[in-house]
Every structure is written in C-alpha cells, then in structure tokens.
C-alpha cells in the first residue's frame, strides 16, 4: 500500500497538480469537475480512470482532444465499472507474472459514472464488480438526471422533480417515484467502504476518498453533483446550492464501513428547511404552486425521517 498523501488543510491541498485539465466542454459551473479534481488530487499515485457515457466523458474526450493527464478509458454507458475492473484484473495478472512495465508503481483504479449509468443502465455491471471484489473505486456523479442527453428522469431523480420525461404539467407534478437508495444497496454488497460526499464539503470528501484509496477492495462513493443546467440555477451558485443540499440534510454526508457500521460525518450547525433547498432550483419551481405545496411538506417529513433513521443506524452499531 502506498503512502497516503498528506492533506492537513486547504493551503496544503492547493499545492496539488490537477490531472484533469481545462478547455473541456463541461458547462460553466459544473460540479462534476470540482468532484473529479477533489478525487484525483487526493492521491499522488498513478491513475487508471474510466468514465461512462455521460457529461463527464463527452465533455472531456472529444477527438482530437483529451482532458485527462492520466490513462483513461470510455467503453459505453453501462460499463465504466467493468472497464476499470478489467484493467485492474490485468494489473493483478501482470504483477503476478512479473510483466508490469513499471512494477514499483501502485496505481489507483477509479471509475466515474453519472447517476443514469450507476443507478439504472449500469447497475448490474456495478453490482458484479462489487460482488467480485475488485480493488477499485467507483464514483457516482449524481446530478439526479440524464443530464448529457437533456435532462431525462433517472432512478436517482427525486420525487417532484421536473424532468423532460416526467415533466411538471397541468395534471402532473413531475416524477412520482422516490430516489433509489444506492448507498444501502452498495453497502448490502458487503463493500468494505461506501460513502456519500458533496464537493462543497471538500475536507469531508477528501478524507473519505483517501480512506477509499487506502481500502482494499471495491469502494463506492456517491457524490452529489449540483447541475446548473438541469437543476436550473445560476452557474456561480453551484457551491451555494451544494451547501443548501448538505445543510438541509437532503444530501446527508455519511459513510458505511463493511456494510454494517454507519457514521454520520457532517452535522450542520443550523439545519435549514428543505423548502429553501427546493426553492433555489428551477426544477422544483412548480412545487410552490398552491396545489403542490403539500409535496414540500412531504419532502420535509421524508428528509426528517431519513435523518432520524441515519442517526439511529449510527447509534445502533450492529
């Protein structure tokens, strides 16, 4: 196991040399690259990275340019997890056979996928990788829609959100189903480490990523990615919206160790009403119509009960 990079504080962290570069095609204000930067900068080890078809992939690898200063692969929509798993298997094979080109290096294998790729179309692939126990990290860039294709609903889209395939209209308030609980699902695989992170809480994220990199076996990271284009807020507000998400507990930050030990890693000093989080985004605008306001109350109740559940899980120490 390689030495863990020392990141005492943000000043120290700022000496990092990014391995994803600019002049990519991501929207101004996109949280994806903030997340990717925090992940890649958490280690000084070599990297083998994969990405599913989606915003990150499409915007960082359009011929004749690549925005990756590391080995990188995109195969398709479902299989960034399996791509990196295959690369990791090759690494293990060549290591055993003594044919590694740079045997002294200890690369990290990281797969990125959007929520569509992770919660929906690539779910089986991800599950298989975790069942097999590859030594890899999977980072979901969760912007709660199929953003790259224009904002269609995914398994991660929360209730009441307006998307192009479940739009708010005269007789509908948008998506009727709840968001899938990927954290619990991946923890149930017995993964050694599973964590939910948000880019505005950089210290929490980097600590978890480093834990993930030091963990042997498959690690699942669910990263909240506030999408200026699809959530409909001004590009400069990405961090502010992320703060609303974490501080209203809509997106709680916690980790699950060995599928059993739950730790809440961020407790907001002041918990803000869910209403403030919803009100800041155009995709929930219709919830503020008189006939839909009951949904805001339901949201608050649900977030409260989820937070309650989280705290009980943390206490129970099963």
């Amino acid at each position, binding site marked *: 196991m390689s030495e863990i990079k020392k990141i005492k504080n943000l000043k120290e962290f700022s000496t990092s040399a990014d391995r994803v570069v600019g002049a990519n095609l991501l929207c101004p204000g996109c949280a994806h690259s903030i997340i990717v930067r925090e992940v890649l900068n958490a280690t000084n080890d070599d990297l083998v990275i994969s990405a599913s078809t989606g915003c990150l992939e499409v915007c960082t690898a359009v011929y004749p340019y690549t925005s990756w200063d590391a080995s990188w692969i995109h195969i398709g929509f479902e299989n960034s997890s399996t791509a990196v798993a295959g690369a990791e298997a090759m690494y293990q094979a060549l290591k*055993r056979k003594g044919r590694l080109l*740079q045997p002294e290096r200890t690369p990290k294998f990281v797969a990125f996928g959007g929520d569509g790729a992770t919660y929906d179309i690539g779910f089986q692939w991800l*599950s298989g990788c975790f069942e097999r126990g590859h030594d890899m990290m999977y980072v979901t860039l969760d912007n709660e829609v199929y953003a790259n294709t224009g904002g269609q609903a995914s398994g991660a889209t929360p209730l009441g959100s307006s998307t192009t395939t479940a739009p708010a209209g005269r007789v509908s308030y948008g998506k009727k189903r709840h968001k899938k609980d990927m954290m619990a699902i991946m923890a149930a695989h017995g993964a050694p480490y599973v964590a939910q992170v948000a880019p505005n809480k950089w210290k929490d994220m980097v600590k978890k990523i480093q834990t993930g990199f030091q963990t042997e076996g498959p690690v699942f990271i669910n990263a909240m990615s506030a999408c200026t284009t699809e959530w409909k807020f001004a590009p400069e507000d990405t961090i502010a919206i992320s703060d609303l998400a974490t501080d209203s507990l809509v997106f709680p930050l916690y980790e699950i160790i060995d599928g059993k030990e739950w730790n809440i890693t961020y407790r907001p000093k002041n918990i803000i009403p869910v209403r403030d989080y919803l009100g800041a985004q155009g995709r929930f605008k219709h919830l503020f119509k008189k006939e839909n306001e009951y949904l805001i109350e339901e949201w608050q109740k649900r977030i409260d009960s989820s937070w309650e559940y989280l705290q009980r899980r943390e206490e129970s120490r099963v």
Partner: protein
Amino acid sequence: MADKMDLLDVEVWDGNMAASQAFRQAQIDVVAAYPITPSTPVVENYAGFLADGYVDGEYVMVESEHAAMSGCVGAAAAGGRVATATSSQGFALMVEVLYQASGMRLPIVLEVVNRALAAPLNVNGDHSDMYLGRDSGWIQLDTFSPQEAYDLTLMAFKIGEDHNVRLPVMVHQDGFISSHTAQGVKTIDDDTAYNFLGEFQPFNAMLDFEKPASYGVQTEEDWHFEHKARQHNDLMTKVFPKIDEVFADFKKLTGREYRILEEYAMDDAEVAIVVMGTSVESTRIVCAELREQGIKAGVLGIRVLRPFPMEKIAAALSGVKAVATLDRSSPNGTVGMLFNEMSGVMINATERPIINNYIYGLGGRDLTIEHIRGIYGDLQENAKAGSLQQPLQQFIGLRGPKLSFY
C-alpha cells in the same frame, strides 16, 4: 508460474476442450467470461485448469456476457493477452461491445460456439449468431472441426496481436456438432505453442504510466468517417498478409496447412457448393463421391469471413457453371448472406455462374449426405440447362410443404 501439461501427440478432444486447451497454452493474462450453452465447457475447462495450477492469469467470472466483453476491453486496453468465449444470446448481448472493441483496435480473441438465436429458444448449432456479428469490425475465422478449433484459436492470438493489425479476432465453431463432438486432435506441446505466439507485446497500454493513453474518445461528423475508414482500410490491407504469414508459420511448425479460402477440388469444378462450419466436411465427402463418378464437383469452405476474400473467391468461381450457397441462418425476409456475398463477388465478371441459395440446419437440424447429393443434383441441372431450374431460395431438411422463394 503456471504448470505445464503433458499432452499426448493425439488427444481425444471435443471442440470446446480444443479451444480451452488453446486458451491454456496461450497463457492468457485476463479471461473475463460467462457461461452459455454450448460454449460453457470452454469456461468450465479453463476454470478447471486454473484450479489445478495450469493457468496463472486472472480469471474474472463476470455477471453477464456484455460484462465479459467489457472486462476484456478494459483489460486489453490496460495491455495484455485477453480472451473469452460465448454463443448465441450471450453473443447478441455483447454485440454493442464488439463494435467498441474493434473501434478501439484491441486484440481480443473471442471463441464463438455458434448457436441459434431465440426466439424460439434453441441451444443447438446454427450460424445466426455468427451472422449477427458480421459488421462488427472483427477479424472472423471459421472452423470445421475440433482440430481446426484448436489450431485456429492459437493462431487467432498471433494474428490479432501483431502491431500492424491490432484487431480483435472471432473464432467460430459449430455448436454441439463441433463443440461437443470429440475427435483425435493432433496437439502441440505447451512450450512450442506458447513460443509460437510469443510473449504479449504491449502497445499503447494504459498501464504504461510513462505514456498515459485516452481510449474511447468521441468523434462527431468532423472526424468519425476518417476513423471508420481507417479501421476498414486496415481490415482490408493489413489482415490477409498477416494471416498468410501465420498460416505459413503454422504449416512449418505442424505440417497442417490452412488457407484463407479452403478450396476443395475447385480447379476445374463446374458445379460448386459454398458453405461454412462442419457441413464443409460433409460436403467434401459427397464431392469426392461425385468426382469418382466423373462429375466436376467442388467445395468452397469459407475460412475467413472477415475480411472477405473477394478476389480469391472470384478466381475460384471463375469457370464454375453453377454455385449453391448454403446459409445456416434464417435471413428472415430475403436471400441468405452467402448468396449475397457470392453474387456480389461475381456480379461484374464477364462470365457468371448461376447462383442459388439454400437455407439449412437451423437450430441444429442435420444436413445429411443425401441432402447434399440433392443440392449437387440441382446444380448439375442448372449447369446443363444454362439457367436456374429451381426456385432461387430453397429450405433443405424442413418438414412440411416444400418451402422455396423467388
């Protein structure tokens, strides 16, 4: 270090064991695989070899065939020798990734144990899966027996891994008829087999951290055409020379000769059957019989389906008066693939044979010696009359009223 196996000079192997042994001898670095009838024994035998210490590569038992090919692509891009096996539904499931693998120019060997595609569900041998993958950009080789499955599977690695080629290779064999039928297979010893392939030479490997590579970038209307044209060009110009070279080296090594187009009694043939898979051998038996009767019969066995040996076929068919194309896959609304390919070869020739089409053997239905005699009979009628004397397309070996079209 993997243990070596002491093989007899001739082993009794079915096509699946022959393929598994070739996999073992190639000392593959990563096999990502999923079981499906009738290719399952390839995966099982390989697992057995691993458990007994004959394999020291990684064996990733994935959760679907799409994942199998995805894992293979990731591993191949990382930089090493990669292979897997599948059939039918599994092949269909991984079709998306087949195109991605060839587009990324990754040498991967895929053993396809040909089986019918559902619906209706059928586990037996026909070529519908082979036909599904035709345009995927892979080098595609066909074998007619377990011996050939062994030989061609070994050669597949050597062909695809050449740095001037860098294309994935499919090796086809008939499900059950070849895969589950044993014959005496002449073997090569482990060291000789491995040395014939040589150690895998990495090229643009992702695990070469001194030269990080980005795989799978997107190309839009300003670039896509050039990239696909390049792939097509390399298939058209780089592959046959390499296959010729590998076949020649193999002949030197073993005495067994393979050819890009397997011509049997074609030199002065007047009537010929174009066919693939195990039926090639059945057809040769009838052909030999007819030759003894003084009938100028011939057989064209398609060894390399892609790239398509157009010039060789044109040369072989020139002077032939009547040609039957046998397709072991339902074309579902038109003439068979081999009919179209042969017609395409001959369309601009000054002298063209009469070409017709037979659909046979779907879902494992036997093509018998009697059937083949009947086909040659049709051909002789056509050759004599100088025109097509039967419907263009006939179904052979089917119960019910005679089914024919055009």
